[in-house]
């Protein structure tokens, strides 16, 4: 019971990290995904380089780089801010890649039909492509959110007191068999938290398939 209480104390921080980083990612990925699908080749290459570079480096390295590496004058990141910015930046790259996939998955006939109807480029993109792309990517975004929830546990390595950090400190204070409890509990909490999102993802996926590909 004590173990459960200790772990749950970290729950608000876990949720805060996840949602804050998710918010950064959802918004920040928009311009990056536009660059990824841009007709201007150098812009596309630059965006591809940024995405691959961010995704090619493990999250823990980004967090340490921000937490320990950034020193501008008197400015330093607090652990929580470093975690939010780090997870946010990584989310931007992953979500941009998901958006790109969605934009490119809109059936070609839609573009041809808009052209035949005489729609302008802007109307085609925002009125035809984006609404359909959004439906295509929404299950993947939900899946990514579950991944981000789990990745937020990495913030414990830079001393952010989220759930895994709380589990560790409880385990240190209880060197008996009881010490294994918080790790089991925290694992269960992550799985339970991800269930509703996973369920939502499957529902969205089924609806999307009916609406777009059927």
């Amino acid at each position: 019971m004590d173990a459960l209480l200790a772990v749950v104390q970290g729950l608000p921080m876990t949720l805060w990290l996840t949602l804050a980083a998710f918010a950064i990612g959802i918004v920040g990925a928009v311009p990056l995904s536009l660059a990824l699908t841009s007709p201007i080749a150098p812009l596309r290459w630059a965006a591809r380089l940024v995405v691959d570079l961010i995704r090619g480096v493990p999250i823990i390295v980004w967090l340490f780089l921000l937490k320990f590496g950034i020193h501008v004058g008197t400015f330093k990141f607090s652990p929580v801010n470093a975690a939010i910015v780090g997870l946010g930046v990584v989310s931007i790259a992953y979500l941009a890649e998901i958006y790109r996939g969605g934009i490119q998955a809109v059936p070609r006939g839609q573009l041809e039909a808009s052209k035949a109807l005489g729609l302008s480029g802007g109307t085609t993109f925002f009125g035809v492509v984006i609404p359909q792309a959004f439906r295509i990517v929404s299950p993947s975004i939900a899946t990514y959110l579950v991944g981000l929830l789990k990745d937020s546990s990495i913030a414990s390595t830079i001393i952010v007191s989220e759930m895994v950090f709380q589990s560790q400190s409880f385990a240190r204070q209880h060197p008996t068999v009881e010490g294994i409890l918080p790790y089991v509990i925290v694992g269960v909490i992550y799985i339970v938290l991800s269930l509703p999102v996973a369920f939502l993802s499957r529902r969205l996926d089924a609806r999307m398939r009916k609406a777009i590909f059927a």
Partner: protein
Amino acid sequence: MNWLQQWAGYLPQMLSGLGVSLFIAAVAIVAGYPLGLLLSVMVQHRNLVIRTLGLAIVEIGRGAPALVILYLVYYGLPKFGIAFESIQAACIALVWNAAAYSSEIIRAGLQSVARGQTEAAYVLGLSGRDTFFRVIMPQGMRSAIPGLMGVAIQMFQGTSLAYAIAVPELMKSAYNIGSEDFNYLQIFTLAGICYAVISIPATWITVYFEKRMSRHA
């Protein structure tokens, strides 16, 4: 440039850390994929007990963060008298992770094999074992290849979490160097480059395979 000179000095220690990282990733992949195949078969098994057991192993391996599994193996199991060295614990945790993720990919691959193949094998009088190992698996694994390569990259990046249980891998080497002279920016940038020079080309190869697969699909 100053940074490059410093990096050159750091490199031997970093490379030995990278070696440990690659070793753990290799163990995770070599042991994880066959286990993943086993799990994917267990999850589809007729027997409820086997199916439930398989499902539990997969869902815990995928649902709990890798860091939690790592702590569970390294700090948790010794409480029951099963103690591991940190590097062994890291290998076990990542093998579990790799097996859980790859089992889902392999299952999807196996299920993508057309039903007619099983029926044809049955009509030809092949045994259940021959049908699986000679007909279904070779075809199913083919479509699982890009996904499995993705898991391999994920595992290589996942080795960085072993830092948290003091495995002397790349991230730990970087941190040790950094705490000697506080050049954290340089050293973690170098660490990031070390990870990126392996992950990024690996990603490109995966994308190439994905494209090739979808061409023949």
